[in-house]
């Protein structure tokens, strides 16, 4: 075959790494052809709905299901009593606690699952819910975690205080754990003798990931063959299979878990919810498939929340601004059950990344987890485990220290960055940062926005405001963040004992196309697009010829799923490694076909070429065909590979963000004039997908910083249970983001890539918040808590006397 196209063309045809390939998923999503859990419709399928508690804390005196059962079309009403003989009225949580599947004697939060109604259609189920009579005796409600630690009201009567919890001894009936990292004594010594110390208390409010698709499942128990099939909104389908097997006693090979298209996860779909368990039990009981889909209010009220950290910080420095020590204490409100979705050994996630991007010699972190009468959760909402909290903490402490030092916060950051030559950098709270080059990224960002010009403009604006010429003040929000993503390694990180590796299995078809299956599951990240690009570059077949499949545990290799930006760092690495195995065998086939020694051929884009004789080659398509149609001495037929990848370390993406904001002090309305985001995620697989990820993460950051919260009143009633009050920004509220990048490849990742999906959220929240707070700094503001919605911004202005 005559080769008429250039090498450049061949690279372009591959659509490999670095190419802004259009997302292959979008054809079906934009044409309404996605296949979500609620699209699963099976013959004879029943529909379920929950009876939920209207009270945040109450004893259940009785449950009467007679009227509900009498409604035509109702097939079953399950209560804890029905689940108890199966041992399923409680379930283990990912955090080593246990959680009621259905209320067992009492309820501990508003919206808690009390009974599970199964009916012929969704409408009958909803009607029957109203007919279930539950008699409650209200108990004193505890919503404040500090009061919880002093209260005589015991929330978790099932726990024995004398028995240590999953993370050590408990200090009080409502206390869950104390987790400490770093050197407390040394840190306190440094703080006590420091030239300058800044202290601050901040509350990172409770919010919710709120994916567009709510949670749900369809369980179908085939009693003839003993097989259970479970479709669901799962960010970790293999873990769900293992948990389902351990809980139900059904052998794991008889359970097939399918996570179909998922409409966003953001951490909300990592955990196991009562609805999943109940749909399985109901299918076993009724002999029919059972579907459970929660509605928006149920999603906001009962499935996993995020944040809710009360953080106290102390930071010390020399007069010149060199940071000498950092102390952080967190009171963590975990709600009624400790259902945080963190690796088992990390009850506060990776909060111990809270020294941030700075070279801080000594630090201490203490976290106390507390039970309250709120929904359980504590998931990583578009961030690696608790990293958003950590980065918010340090980026606020830096700003407060800058105030204390009367120094520019950009300069303070520059003085303290970990330097390029310090990597790999051993941080004082236990992590080894793999790579980084912070100062050039920071300088690039500040230059891009003309930082000095902005500060001059801000100073002029302050004067104009004081002269009464304007009622708008200007804030410059800065943030420099380091993420920690890609859990594993297995030696540190596990979920319910499962090591946090990930996997990829590749089959090359005879005609030179391929299918690759991974242990992860896309929820909108575009895995089918980007993983095919990794493979295209590794194995020399066009990305368009490679199908990526995930989410079906009968076909995909075992993996720990997608959250914490782990897919590219872990499964992406497995993909590259599996591709390299394919390539290694292909090299032997090519050498045989070209009648040369294995070492005499080399890989070139889409082919193996005889060294020094580029006209003699075999394309990967030729090689794939040969793998199936020729007997090659010493080689098995076929061309397949599998890789299970245990990363040696996490990856540490970073970024530099600047937000310019104008605030109307009279109405409290903020206007985002400009948002610049520089991300360094190492090797860039698909720049367009990265840009989309950055836009999405920033938008969720804007939401959280400027208004999105799950708020409770004193009785534990959720005040933000609908999208009228729970802020989900639209295109209207979102500014035009400017994105930029530097590239610092991960030294240990096969292709040098780091995660990126969550970086913009992690860096974005403090950047938006700092912009608000910076606007008020010239008027004496030090810190105000998020969310910065209109009235709270107005309140800040009011407290500073700006309305006088």
């Amino acid at each position: 075959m005559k080769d008429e196209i250039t090498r450049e063309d061949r690279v372009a045809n591959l659509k490999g790494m670095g190419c802004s390939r259009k997302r292959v998923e979008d054809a079906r999503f934009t044409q309404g052809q996605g296949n979500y859990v609620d699209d699963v419709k099976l013959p004879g399928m029943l529909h379920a709905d929950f009876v939920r508690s209207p009270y945040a804390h109450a004893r259940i005196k009785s449950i009467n299901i007679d009227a509900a059962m009498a409604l035509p079309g109702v097939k079953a009403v399950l209560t804890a009593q029905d689940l108890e003989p199966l041992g399923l009225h409680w379930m283990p949580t990912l955090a080593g606690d246990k959680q009621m599947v259905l209320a067992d004697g009492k309820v501990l939060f508003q919206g808690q699952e009390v009974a599970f109604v199964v009916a012929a259609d969704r409408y009958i189920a909803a009607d029957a819910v109203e007919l279930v009579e539950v008699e409650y005796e209200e108990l004193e409600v505890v919503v404040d975690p500090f009061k919880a630690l002093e209260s005589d009201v015991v929330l978790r009567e099932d726990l024995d205080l004398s028995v240590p919890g999953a993370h050590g001894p408990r200090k009080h009936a409502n206390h869950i754990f104390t987790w400490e990292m770093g050197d407390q004594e040394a840190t306190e010594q440094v703080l006590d003798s420091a030239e300058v110390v800044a202290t601050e208390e901040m509350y990172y409010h409770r919010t919710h990931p709120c994916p567009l698709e709510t949670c749900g499942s369809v369980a179908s128990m085939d009693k003839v063959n003993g097989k259970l099939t479970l479709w669901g909104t799962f960010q970790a389908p293999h873990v769900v299979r293992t948990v389902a097997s351990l809980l139900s006693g059904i052998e794991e090979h008889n359970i097939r878990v399918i996570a179909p298209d998922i409409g966003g996860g953001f951490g909300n779909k990592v955990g196991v919810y009562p609805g999943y368990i109940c749909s399985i039990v109901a299918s076993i009981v009724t002999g029919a498939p059972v579907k459970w889909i929660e509605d928006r209010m149920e999603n906001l009220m009962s499935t996993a929340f995020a944040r809710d950290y009360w953080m106290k910080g102390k930071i010390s420095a020399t007069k010149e601004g060199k940071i000498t020590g950092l102390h952080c204490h967190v009171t963590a409100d975990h709600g009624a059950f400790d259902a945080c979705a963190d690796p088992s050994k990390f009850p506060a996630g990776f909060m111990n990344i809270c020294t941030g991007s700075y070279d801080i010699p000594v630090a201490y972190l203490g976290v106390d987890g507390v039970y309250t009468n709120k929904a359980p959760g504590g998931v990583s909402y578009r961030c690696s485990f608790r990293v958003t909290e950590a980065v918010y903490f340090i980026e606020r402490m830096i700003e407060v220290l800058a105030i204390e030092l009367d120094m520019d916060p950009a300069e303070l950051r520059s003085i303290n960055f970990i330097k390029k030559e310090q990597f790999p950098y051993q941080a004082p709270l236990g992590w080894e940062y793999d790579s980084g080059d912070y100062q050039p990224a920071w300088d690039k960002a500040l230059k891009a926005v003309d930082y000095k010009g902005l500060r001059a403009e801000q100073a002029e604006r302050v004067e104009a405001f004081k002269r009464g010429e304007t009622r708008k003040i200007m804030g410059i929000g800065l943030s420099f963040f380091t993420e920690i993503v890609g859990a594993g390694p297995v030696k540190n990180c596990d979920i319910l004992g499962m090591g946090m590796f990930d996997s990829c299995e590749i089959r090359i078809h005879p005609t030179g196309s391929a299918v690759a299956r991974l242990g992860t599951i896309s929820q909108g990240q575009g895995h089918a697009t980007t993983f095919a690009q990794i493979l295209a570059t590794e194995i020399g077949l066009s990305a368009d010829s490679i199908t990526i499949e995930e989410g079906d545990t009968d076909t995909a290799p075992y993996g720990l799923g997608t959250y914490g930006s782990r897919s590219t760092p872990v499964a992406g690495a497995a993909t590259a490694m599996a591709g390299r195995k394919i390539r290694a065998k292909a090299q032997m086939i090519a050498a045989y076909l070209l009648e040369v020694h294995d070492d005499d051929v080399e890989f070139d884009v889409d082919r193996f070429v005889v060294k020094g004789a580029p006209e003699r080659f075999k394309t990967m398509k030729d090689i794939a065909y040969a793998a199936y149609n020729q007997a090659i001495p010493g080689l098995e037929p076929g061309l397949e590979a599998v890789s299970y990848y245990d990363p040696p370390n996490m990856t540490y993406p970073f970024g530099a963000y600047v937000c310019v904001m104008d605030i109307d002090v009279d109405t409290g309305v903020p206007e985002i004039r400009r948002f610049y985001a520089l991300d360094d995620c190492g090797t860039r697989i698909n720049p367009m997908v990265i840009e989309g990820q950055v836009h999405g993460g920033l938008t969720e950051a804007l939401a959280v910083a400027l208004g999105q919260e799950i708020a409770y009143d004193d009785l534990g009633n959720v005040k933000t249970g609908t999208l009228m009050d729970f802020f989900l920004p639209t295109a209207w509220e979102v500014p035009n983001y400017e994105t930029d990048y530097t590239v610092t490849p991960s030294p240990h990742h096969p292709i040098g890539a780091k995660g990126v999906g969550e970086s913009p959220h992690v860096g974005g929240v403090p950047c938006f918040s700092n912009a608000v707070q910076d606007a008020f700094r010239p008027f004496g503001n030090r810190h105000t808590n998020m969310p910065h919605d209109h009235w709270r911004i107005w309140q800040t202005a009011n407290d500073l006397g700006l309305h006088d």
Partner: protein
Amino acid sequence: MIPAAFEYYRPASMEGVIALLEEHGDEARVIAGGHSLIPMMKLRMAEVAHLIDLQDIASLSGITIDSDGIRLGAMTTQHDIIGSAALTAAAPIIKEAALQIADPQVRYMGTVGGNVANGDPGNDMPGLMQCLDAQFHLLGPDGERVVAARDFYEAAYMTDREDEEVLVEITFAAPTGGYAYEKQKRKIGDYATAAAAVQMSKVDGKVATASIAMTNLSDTPIWSEETAEALIGTTCDDAAIKSAIAAMLGDIDPTEDNRGPIAFKCHAAGIVLGRAIKRAWSRA
């Protein structure tokens, strides 16, 4: 978010609608665009055993402008209002307000009749219609009666309309002078934190007439005569605006909710009103 069972009717004439209302009394509700009632039904906060859809009654739609004034059929959508050049020429404040209601998708379905008849204090059109001194035409078993918008609202979701009556049209005289509809909200699709509808006219550099109504700051819209009086006869200078705001604050009665505490709402209401007056005056 699953409504209870209901019977659905789609009569072709108002006679049919009235007959159904007479038959089912307070168990029946008419539905126009459905953007208030359907969510309430899905939340089971409104249980409607008999739902009467007005979509098939063509006579309820349409905008008429003639020497008698302006007539809006109850089923006229916000989208129709925004798209009507004639209405915008005759009463530009309506388009300015309608563009601040919800989002385009909701405005395709949401109607002016539904907006004013539901009695939701968050809706923008009731205050606007009070500002314009509109008349609401109610058709019932005994024929039609007319109620002034300023007399129609009793409390949240409570109006002067009887269960067997349907609000069929809104009439008002074309306003003169300057106008402004100013609304502060948290996001697209939100109800007002505070909103002000202002119409005012100028003679010899002074305020000749003024009409002012506030939205979502009490359990009904607040048309404030005292606020208007504080402006009339003045040159609409800062002192007059300050007096008007003070008068308005005496008439509203906001409650604390997720939009903020009372002090903030009062402050925002004053700012919103001040801006609306200035804009209206600049157009007078």
